[in-house]
């Protein structure tokens, strides 16, 4: 009984929900429309609830650091939790588009986010120089195509040598698109298989930890 409720039932809910959503798309049935519309609303509300997970995880990890006084970490942990509280407090109580919120957002989060992700550019540049070497056929292909694209992506060179635009256009529309399409067809089948496995209860990652009965 308990295994049914704890394991089979959630899987059944997945299948029924998925079948409803698909049926509404493929079949002209009046009954499914309103149900699926409600389901989509629910999906959004549940996704919104799930947005809080990150903060809870951080809270668990960093309160542990603070209580254990992990060396070289706990002061940062206090600061991190303070930032969570600051953003949540200002955003919820004053408003996410208030002057105050926009101020902290632009001063910290915006600047940091944009910088952190762009910093990988340094590694890509270094990787370009170190790894784009003509060692064998594959690396020659990488080098030649990469080199052409590098030159084309410099607007000044592209303007001076329009042939670069033509060559790049060819690389883009013939080998790149076709190879990506082959990969896409494979990946689409992978996604379909994942969906099917989830619906028949063979992919149970979402169930999380296992209960006693399931072990």
């Amino acid at each position, binding site marked *: 009984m308990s295994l049914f409720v704890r394991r089979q039932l959630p899987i059944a809910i997945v299948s029924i929900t998925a079948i409803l959503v698909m049926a509404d798309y493929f079949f002209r049935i009046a009954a499914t429309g309103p149900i699926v519309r409600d389901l989509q609303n629910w999906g959004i509300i549940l996704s919104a609830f799930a947005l809080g997970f990150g903060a809870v995880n951080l809270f668990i990890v960093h309160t542990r650091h603070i209580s254990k006084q992990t060396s070289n970490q706990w002061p940062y942990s206090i600061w991190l939790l303070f930032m969570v509280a600051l953003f949540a407090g200002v955003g919820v109580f004053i408003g996410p588009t208030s002057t105050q919120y926009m101020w902290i957002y632009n001063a910290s989060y915006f600047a940091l*986010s944009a910088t952190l*992700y762009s910093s990988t550019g340094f590694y890509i540049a270094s990787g*370009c120089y170190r790894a784009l070497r003509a060692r064998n056929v594959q690396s020659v292909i990488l080098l030649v195509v990469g080199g052409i694209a590098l030159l084309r992506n410099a607007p000044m060179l592209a303007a001076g040598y329009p042939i670069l635009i033509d060559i790049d256009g060819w690389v*883009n529309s013939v080998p790149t698109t076709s190879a990506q399409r082959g990969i896409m067809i494979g990946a689409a089948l992978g996604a379909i298989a994942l969906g099917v496995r989830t619906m028949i209860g063979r992919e149970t990652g979402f169930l999380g930890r296992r209960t006693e009965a399931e072990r």
Partner: protein
Amino acid sequence: MSSLWKKLEDVPREVLYGLFLLAFIIPMLSPFGLPIPISADVRKWFATIDALPAGSTIMIDMGYSAGGEPELGPYAVAVTHHIFKKGKLKSIYMATSIDGVQLWETLMAEVKPEQYGAKYGTDYVHLGYMAGTETAMAKVGTGPMPSTDYKGNSIAQMPVMEGIKDATSFKLLICYTTGGDQSEGWVRQWVTPYKTPYLSCVLALMIPTMLPYYRAGQIVSLVSGATAGQYELLNKIPARGIKSADVISICHILIFAFVVLGNIAYYARKASEGSRKGG
């Protein structure tokens, strides 16, 4: 000799990074004003908006995160200028990115729609961030539209929402995004069922994975945010995009030079090692 080649083959990263930084800073201090060619994809995007009949409504997804703003922001600014400048178009914004509201505020502060006589609620509205990505797209697609805007104000009385029921009410879909879930999600949730014409602006690194859709006709025009300068030229409103063009040129030339240097050093070292072994 071979030790010199060895050094050139493995220049310390601090040196490389330093030169890379200089390649940014020098053109920023004294811009060269190098030319910028305009690509066919950008022209197509521009023409698509230009060809919209008066009174058309556009769905615009602020799908980029703060991390991608430096690349996608300038393009979004240029397109927004174009839409307002052309006039008689209604823009309905929504955000599938959690930063899509704050970044929209920044975008509007930069564009200043009032200079074109555009009014919030009449010509444009922002429905706010909606969690769930593809679920959110599907929900807006089937309708009904949310009842409030991003600030929680009722939108029922706003003229911009007149006659808007679901995806079929839109003549065009635009998405600026840093995420594959968004750029591909719109193809799945809107283009596939409703055949809405779709303009997609993504990070340059996402272009190759999006190409199969483009070639299959599921996207009208696919561009990267790095082409903002080209759109600014078409628009005749210079901004961040044009400013970045010199830097982009110089950085690419530097990296290309390093790639060439690395290869020469690699082969020279091999040759000198080979000759030593032989001799």
